[in-house]
């Protein structure tokens, strides 16, 4: 029985259907050199697999993981100019996360605290929810406790809004009826105007990265509110 090389290889790779495989096996029983070739094919596969296997368990370099890290704001555009802001902002971000988790644990339901914890995610609550739900950037009063900045859709189609409050600023996205906090930055007491500006630039930069298309204008913002931010 004649078995061509490609069929034999396909057999070694487990690619043949049942009937074809049986045919190869009968041929192998009669011709030991075929069995040897199958073994060689499999040995080669093992050699190659073993050779590259360590890559799977090797620690991933930061330059590969950072672009995929959702908690780090990407500043590919102008990294050097913004480096200073980034470091400061990340420290603030880390602080806000801790504050948020503490707040979430100590005051899990309601209250006027702006942040809660739902299944391990930071969510807006209390007054912050009210601001996010009902405030329009175009009509809000100048002395509102929390000011809404940009409203936009992210790449997953969710409506997101930047906000700026007395203690906390950040970006919240509307997911399944809740405002998930995607970015937060704690406000420090007696913050200098320069730092405040840096924090705001950081949020704008972050928003820009998340955004699909342009931010909403007043009209689109109102329409989004009318359809419950869905």
């Amino acid at each position, binding site marked *: 029985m004649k078995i061509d090389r490609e069929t034999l290889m396909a057999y070694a790779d487990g690619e043949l259907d049942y009937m074809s495989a049986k045919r190869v096996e009968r041929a192998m029983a009669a011709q030991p050199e075929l069995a040897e070739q199958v073994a060689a094919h499999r040995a*080669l596969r093992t050699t190659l697999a073993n050779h590259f296997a360590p*890559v799977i368990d*090797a620690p991933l370099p930061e*330059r590969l993981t950072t672009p995929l890290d959702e908690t780090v704001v990407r500043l590919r555009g102008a990294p050097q100019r913004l480096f200073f802001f980034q470091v400061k902002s990340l420290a603030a971000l880390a602080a806000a996360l801790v504050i948020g988790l503490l707040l979430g644990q100590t005051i899990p339901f309601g209250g006027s605290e702006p942040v809660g914890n739902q299944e391990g995610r930071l969510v807006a609550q209390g007054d912050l929810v009210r601001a996010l739900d009902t405030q329009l950037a175009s009509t809000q009063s100048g002395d509102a406790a929390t000011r809404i900045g940009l409203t936009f859709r992210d790449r*997953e189609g969710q409506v997101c809004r930047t906000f700026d409050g007395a203690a906390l600023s950040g970006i919240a996205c509307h997911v399944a009826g809740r405002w998930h906090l995607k970015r937060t930055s704690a406000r420090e007491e007696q913050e200098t105007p320069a730092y405040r500006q840096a924090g705001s630039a950081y949020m704008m930069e972050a928003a820009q990265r998340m955004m699909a298309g342009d931010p909403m204008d007043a009209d689109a913002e109102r329409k989004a509110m009318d359809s419950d931010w869905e």
Partner: protein
Amino acid sequence: MAFERDLLALLPRLRRFAASLSRNPADGDDLCQASIERALKSRDHWQAGTRLDSWMYRIMRNLWIDEVRARTRRSQTFVAEEGGLAVGNDGDKQTEMAVEIGNVGRAMEKLPAEQREVIALVLVEGFAYKEAAEILDIPIGTLTSRLCRGRDALMVHLGEAA
């Protein structure tokens, strides 16, 4: 976001694929990084519900082919660079390991690009013929003949031919 998370989970496999296509780990990571950037940029082209891994492998393979073509055009420079890379690998054990690692790597490198990518997808990444053919956008008959020739060449280079 789900897209980033799924990519992150794929990263070790993508890195292995990049390593099997590239001449050294640093080149592999360059390719991997370029692929991630390309994927993030063209995420709108990925259809939810289809296989993200196949899509990513295709992106990486296309970037690699571009690089191979560009490299062919400036091959002189690269030969010189490669000669330089072997220098400075001291210590008996390290040298021994480097040689052993080098055998498979060097054998892979001798393969024409179209055989090498097939070998990498099927024998290293473990894709079925059909899946690999889809990633490369070639008929399955073309895939099996390239795979067969690539294997023969590797066996010769590695001294495993019967």
